[in-house]
């Protein structure tokens, strides 16, 4: 365990940024935090979490795949993916850190998505333990310890110091380049105890999804609850786009008249055109689309991934859904019938 005084935070950031691009949560001027490229003057936000998750840095909303040039019947493929520089992301919370496991299972399974892979290899994740969880937090449901997040390096922060623990080789390598003081873990343990006390008091503490594991897929799918749950869903993509684990994407071409740029961008299974084909869609109403999103997170994904749910309990969708419908309400409603 190492530490550095809070007053030295900027020095620490400067030291990291001297070698690699550094992203930290900073206030965006509109009352929220976002991962911002650190430069002199960028201050660490005191918000619990960012609106957009750390997923953005590994799976950006829009990503250039390849270019094409066409002339007559001739076609040329021009690889022009954006170069990925090594980078460090600081201040990732336990929930987002856990989301990388889920994303890895999708993108790093065969065939490997090399765009994501490159970013994962290039990125060092420095997590920051939570000290003031919000009422919408429920990472505990998924066995995530908000006081002891994963990542290449784990940090804790109290009023005076930032405590630092390298977890991986990548983390060790970065640590070696920095000027940190050795310390014992007593301050951290004390903070963890205090925070765990708060975590126990969270309104969603005790929320348990394990019932879903014993359910037959088709039973959940055919639950009569879906109609009422989805009734007020607007079909927007807010939940999807703030979600750290949602990874559906679309591939589109943009023709500027001289060349065609193929890019991928986030997509949402909540959108009416998600599965639209020339002759219709197989999920014609919002009920089917809504069900798909939650079935995927609660049933389909765990079925294929050793029982791991496609949710990390970060609570973003609870905060941001325009009509306040979310996975907690869905899970609770479905559990009534189990």
């Amino acid at each position, binding site marked *: 365990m190492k530490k550095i005084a809070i007053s030295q935070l900027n020095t620490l950031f400067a030291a990291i940024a001297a070698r690699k691009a550094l992203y930290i949560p900073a206030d*965006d*001027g*509109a*009352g*929220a935090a*976002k991962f911002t490229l650190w430069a002199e003057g960028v201050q660490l936000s005191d918000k*619990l979490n960012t*609106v*957009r998750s750390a997923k953005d840095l590994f799976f950006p*909303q*829009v990503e250039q795949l390849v270019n094409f040039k066409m002339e007559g019947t001739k076609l040329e493929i021009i690889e022009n993916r954006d170069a990925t520089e090594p980078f460090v992301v600081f201040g990732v919370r336990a929930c987002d850190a856990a989301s990388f496991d889920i994303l890895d299972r999708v993108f790093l399974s065969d065939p490997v998505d090399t765009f994501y892979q490159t970013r994962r290899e290039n990125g060092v994740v420095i997590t920051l333990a939570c000290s*003031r*969880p*919000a*009422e919408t937090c429920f990472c505990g449901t998924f066995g995530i310890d908000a006081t002891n997040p994963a990542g290449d390096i784990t940090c804790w922060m109290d009023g005076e110091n930032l405590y630092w623990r390298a977890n991986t080789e990548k983390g060790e390598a970065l640590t070696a380049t920095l000027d940190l003081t050795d310390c014992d873990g007593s301050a951290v343990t004390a903070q963890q105890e205090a925070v765990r006390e*708060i975590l126990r*008091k*969270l*309104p*969603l503490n005790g929320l348990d999804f394990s019932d879903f594991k014993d359910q037959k897929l088709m039973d959940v799918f055919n639950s009569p609850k879906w109609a*009422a749950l989805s*009734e*007020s869903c*607007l*079909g*927007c*993509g*807010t939940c*999807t*786009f*703030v979600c750290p684990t949602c990874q559906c994407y*679309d591939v*589109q071409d*943009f023709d500027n008249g001289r060349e065609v740029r193929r*890019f991928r*961008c*986030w*997509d*949402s299974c909540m*959108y*009416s*055109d998600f599965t639209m084909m020339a002759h219709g869609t197989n999920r014609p109403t919002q009920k089917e689309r809504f069900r798909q999103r939650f079935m995927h997170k609660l049933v389909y994904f765990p079925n294929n991934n050793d029982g791991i749910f496609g949710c990390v309990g970060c609570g973003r969708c*609870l905060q*941001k859904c*325009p*009509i*306040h*419908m979310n996975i*907690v*309400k869905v899970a609770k409603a479905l559990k009534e019938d189990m």
Partner: protein
Amino acid sequence: MQERLKQKAIELLQNGTADRILGWKAGEFFYDLTPAVFTSKEQIEKDFVFNVFAGANLSKYLIAESRKGGKVAAFIKPCDSYSFQQLLKEHRILRDNVYVVGVQCDGMCDVAKLGCEGILGVQEDGESLTVDTLYGKKTVKKADAIADRCATCKSKKIVVFDELIGEQGEETEADRFGEVAKLEAMTPEERFDFWRGELSRCIRCNACRNVCPACSCEKCVFDNANSGVRNKAAADSFEENMFHIIRAFHVTGRCTDCGECSRVCPQNIPLHLLNRKLIKDINELYGPYQAGADMDTKPPLTNFTVDDCEPSIVHERGGQ
């Protein structure tokens, strides 16, 4: 208020006025109400909620609800009633299938304005709200927590209803256009920087569009591969601008200024300013017009006079 609404909802179901009730349902916390359709007394007694966080505009749901057969009763606040009437005017809602209960509104609260972390519960008592949080109790004046859009409310009048709960209100004198005027006074460079700062946060989640009662197209041009403007994610600043310009233009003269777009934006972009700018322009250039205020007045973009101002007024109007 909540009890009166509940009683009314039950009464309307029991006396056969309505088969379904569109209202708000309780959530996990005090503030996360969800619009919901109730069909039984039991459901209403258990889950029906109306409080200072019942901000969602229910009028857009009635496009679909009024076509589901049977009759639906809906609780409509003043600003919702403008949206409702605008949708009637555009033949989107089948009036005969809706029973409108107008609900007096004194302004809704914005949970963010409570300035609290870890909210466990909110107690409404009189003019103040007592917030119980993980980190202690706090009392907030209701007036301080009122949503921005409600602070500049255009009208407390319910323009269409079958019956009323509470008092009928009046149009207000609130200064809706102060913020717009402030922007107008800036230099184009400043305005550009302002909007770049705001719009660059857009994640194209479409919440603003999907919640907007004026954006009720069967198929939005941005979802339509044939429209030439389809885009799913803003690839660059142009597409960020494009989406919001076209959206604002499409609701010009149809936007009732309900403010839902800004309420739902997960990135807190003040989208309503774009619409208000256009409303201000319309009022100044073509005479006062309030979308949804009545069924007859021709919307400004499908109307004209021979001596309308020329587009060059944008250059001549002065300002920055």
